[in-house]
């Protein structure tokens, strides 16, 4: 099991602290910090352009911050000994070349981590793409591409999942699938961090909420704490963010 690997209390914990990111003269992130814990779904919410994707990209080692740290299990992502078995990442799109088949895409990812190729059919089955594995990614619908990205993230059965706008492009059935799936992951003790700009869709899925607006964290806590006296998370959100 993942928690028997040592690293003690930091296992499965995402710790982001004091991130500052500038692009040219604009400051995209101004000291972003929060934690995501095992056994909980953490919703990272904010309007478009608030800095959600930038934060997650820094966490995943895709972009660099000018200041601050983003750690998984207490270490920066790029220093993880076995990234595929530690963190699964779902970013926008499919993350796959369109002229490869879904199965060929999963094959090279499996090879990069020395995973058994039998995992490919397992994850395709898990996300409901069992029949589409031999199709080229270019012929996938938007929702199928998103499912392939999720399948890729699950190849190494990681204790931590990071998802950027996982509900984008999904039909109602897909949204329901993702919600149920993420709840199950958290209930089995794993860490789930997801970003979204859709408050209504998430209120039933998340345990903890972090709200970002214009590069700053404006609220964080449990769902009940952040919702506070407001009627819903959505109302609390609009009270918190400036427009």
């Amino acid at each position: 099991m993942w928690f028997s690997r040592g690293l003690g209390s930091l296992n499965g914990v995402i710790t982001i602290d004091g991130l500052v990111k500038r692009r040219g003269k604009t400051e995209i992130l101004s000291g972003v910090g929060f934690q995501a814990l095992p056994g909980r779904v953490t919703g990272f919410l904010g309007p478009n352009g608030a800095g959600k994707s930038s934060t997650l990209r820094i966490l995943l080692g895709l972009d660099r911050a000018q200041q601050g740290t983003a750690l998984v299990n207490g270490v920066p992502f790029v220093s993880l000994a076995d990234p595929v078995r530690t963190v699964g990442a779902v970013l926008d799109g499919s993350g796959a070349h369109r002229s490869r088949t879904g199965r060929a895409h999963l094959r090279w990812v499996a090879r990069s981590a020395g995973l058994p190729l039998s995992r490919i059919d397992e994850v395709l089955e898990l996300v409901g793409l069992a029949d589409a594995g031999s199709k080229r990614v270019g012929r996938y619908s938007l929702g199928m591409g998103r499912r392939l990205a999720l399948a890729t993230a699950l190849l190494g059965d990681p204790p931590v999942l990071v998802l950027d706008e996982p509900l984008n492009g999904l039909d109602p059935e897909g949204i329901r699938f993702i919600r149920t799936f993420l709840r199950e992951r958290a209930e089995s003790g794993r860490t789930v961090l997801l970003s979204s700009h859709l408050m209504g869709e998430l209120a039933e899925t998340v345990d903890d909420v972090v709200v970002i607006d214009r590069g700053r964290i404006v609220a964080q806590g449990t769902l009940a704490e952040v919702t506070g006296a407001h009627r819903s998370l959505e109302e609390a959100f609009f009270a918190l963010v400036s427009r």
Partner: protein
Amino acid sequence: MIRAELSKLLSLPATWVTLGWTLAVNVLLTFVIAVGGSAVAYSQAGFVVLGALATCSEYTGGQIRTTLTVMPRRVHQLTAKYIALVALTVPAALVVALSGTVITMAVLGSWAVPWEVAEVTAYVTLVTLLGAAVGALVRHTLAAVALVIGYLFVVTPLVQDTVFAGDVVTLAFWTPAFLGIALFVHRLRDA
């Protein structure tokens, strides 16, 4: 990581289309020109495309994000890609070099020395890697191909006998230099 990068190269249809056309054109040109070495002067363009594809195909469909989240040590990852590309290119380059030699011998009855085969193979491999390095820098297949082919077909004839001449000796210097610059830039920039 090398296996992952090789797996990527081999499962990309464009790789096989490029290699197929390059070999076919090379054989055809060798018959037309009937001088072993010189067909490579044209078919090297196919290898530039192969090299550029290897690095630029990462930027289609956001695959680079997958690559860097599963292989976050970027210098290791890109080096693995270079090695995988050499593993694919050397056999293809050998075929090109040998087909030229064999056809020339058959048509003209002259003997080509093994040294020539080695030189052509080395040259073609260096050209492929140059395509890959420039591809990694500009991240756009067409732009990378245009730059490298422009250099090989337009610039080099004008600058013979200088350090920019595109022969196997100058390429043995410039290609590693560009491979190194590409590694450095790849490591530092936001993906």
